[in-house]
């Protein structure tokens, strides 16, 4: 098994939804971070989630992976309610919905290769992995994933010796070896310089196109969303204020999201 031998699927937006959120809500005490969000995502789409800091973007993505439990509502994936999963089924879902974080969330003292191999922890056999044993097939898979992102030379270095851009590419490799159906990227480029930001967005787009993996990506940058995504979902105070094509993202919509339009289009 290798990553490149997978079937190449066409990225066609607008076919029947594979992921559907219904009235999804998350409250922290009296504060409502995500407020009755309903939306549908089709298989193979690349969706940008926009909104100001605190608009609920991170909470939304974390709820889909179930790192954060919803207070109310449904998360349907192929008709199955993800919000109700528990135990082994929940862990299997987390494997299928890979997360990418703003701060990369690698384990600094482990090697790059071991960090990528943690993406295989939910694949059988599981017990040997508790004692550090992975199969040769998995090591090869991890190396292929690193090579696909130009990081194979760094495989045996400690993860905390890498630059931010390199660490994020390792994190994407980790997501790839999970063999996910969905990639949830939470501000993947917010800690990176513009060149690395473009490289990471390009990698996500390539994964989306070549493997047909659905990508939901929280972004702060409107130009990045315009350059790399098919569709935009915008949140404000936990509610969806825009859900549509990139082309429809005009000044009036930006005003609704950010309360200002000029500062955003000129940045970057």
């Amino acid at each position: 098994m290798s990553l490149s031998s997978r079937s190449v699927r066409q990225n066609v937006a607008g076919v029947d939804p594979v992921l559907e959120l219904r009235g999804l809500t998350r409250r922290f005490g009296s504060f409502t971070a995500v407020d009755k969000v309903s939306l549908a995502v089709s298989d193979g789409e690349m969706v940008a989630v926009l909104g100001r800091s605190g608009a609920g973007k991170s909470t939304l993505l974390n709820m889909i992976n179930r790192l954060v439990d919803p207070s109310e509502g449904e998360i349907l994936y192929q008709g199955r309610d993800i919000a109700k999963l528990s135990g082994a089924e929940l862990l299997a879902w987390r494997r299928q919905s890979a997360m990418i974080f703003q701060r990369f969330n690698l384990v600094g003292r482990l090697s790059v290769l071991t960090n990528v191999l943690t993406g295989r922890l939910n694949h059988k056999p599981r017990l040997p992995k508790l004692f550090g044993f992975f199969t040769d097939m998995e090591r090869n898979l991890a190396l292929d994933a690193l090579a696909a992102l130009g990081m194979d030379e760094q495989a045996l270095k400690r993860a905390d010796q890498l630059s931010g851009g390199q660490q994020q590419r390792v994190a994407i490799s980790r997501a790839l070896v999970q063999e996910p159906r969905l990639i949830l990227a939470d501000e993947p480029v917010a800690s990176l310089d513009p060149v690395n930001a473009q490289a990471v967005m390009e990698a996500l787009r390539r994964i989306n196109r070549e493997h047909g993996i659905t990508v939901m990506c929280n972004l702060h940058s409107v130009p990045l969303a315009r350059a790399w995504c098919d569709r935009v979902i915008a949140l404000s105070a936990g509610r969806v204020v825009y859900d549509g094509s990139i082309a429809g993202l005009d000044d009036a919509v930006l005003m609704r999201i950010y309360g200002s339009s000029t500062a955003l289009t000129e940045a970057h």
Partner: protein
Amino acid sequence: MNIVEVAPQSAARIHFAEAWGRHKRARRLQWLIGMAILLVLIAISAELGEVNLGLLWERLPRFGSYFGRMVPELAWATLWADLAYWYWNGWHWLASLWQTILIAIYATIFGVVLAYVFSFLAARNLSPAPWISVAARRVLEFARTVPELVFAVLFVFAFGIGPLAGVLAIGLHSFGALGKLFGDVAENIDPEPLRGVRATGASWAQTMVYGATPQLAPDYLSYGLLRLEINVRAASILGFVGAGGIGQDLYRAIKNFDHTDISAIALMLIAAVMLIDALCGWMRGRVIGQEGLRAL
């Protein structure tokens, strides 16, 4: 220009000076009452504890003469023969000392392994459920509150005289002490890498191994080595209740009034403890030193 001189006798300052005076008088009174209570308590506890300074002074020479009797007769002309006579049972004592060190090493490994597992249960940020954290902490408290000697007496009764009882007694106490320290350290780790591992679908145990352990390994190693130092000292005493090692020889020498044997064994023991301390200190320095350099 000088702001201080703008209002030399403002109402606020006069008011404050009065308040400050009252405050100082109240503090002085508190201090006097506190000292009086302390002195009374010291007097009461001296009376109850039968502390008698006169007796201490009177009997102090006896203490010195005991040490005097422990000094072996060494003459320069017959030094080697005298030393050989002093350490007449040296090889046996060396073997016992080695057993003591092995008891300490096995007990430390036993304690570290158990404490490693329990630290993740006890740490409030890592525990699978709050009640598990509370339960784990109670177990650790029990293990470290009971002194090693008490555990040793129980285990000698159960498993017979010998080093096994010593290993279990010191190991159990180490488990309690280390589990508490490990658990407290684990509560301060960076949660982000843990989220990264958790999000891949890793189980709780896998998350502890791949997300938490790499962050904690240097601290755990450092505390483990410190515990080894402590355990060598503890193991040298446990022989008194029959739990193996050099303590059994020391106890026999004291019981039989073999005064030069006591000094011979004690000197070996002190040398061994100093050696182990230096070795552990050096190893801990290496572990911490590397981490410290990296941070700078």
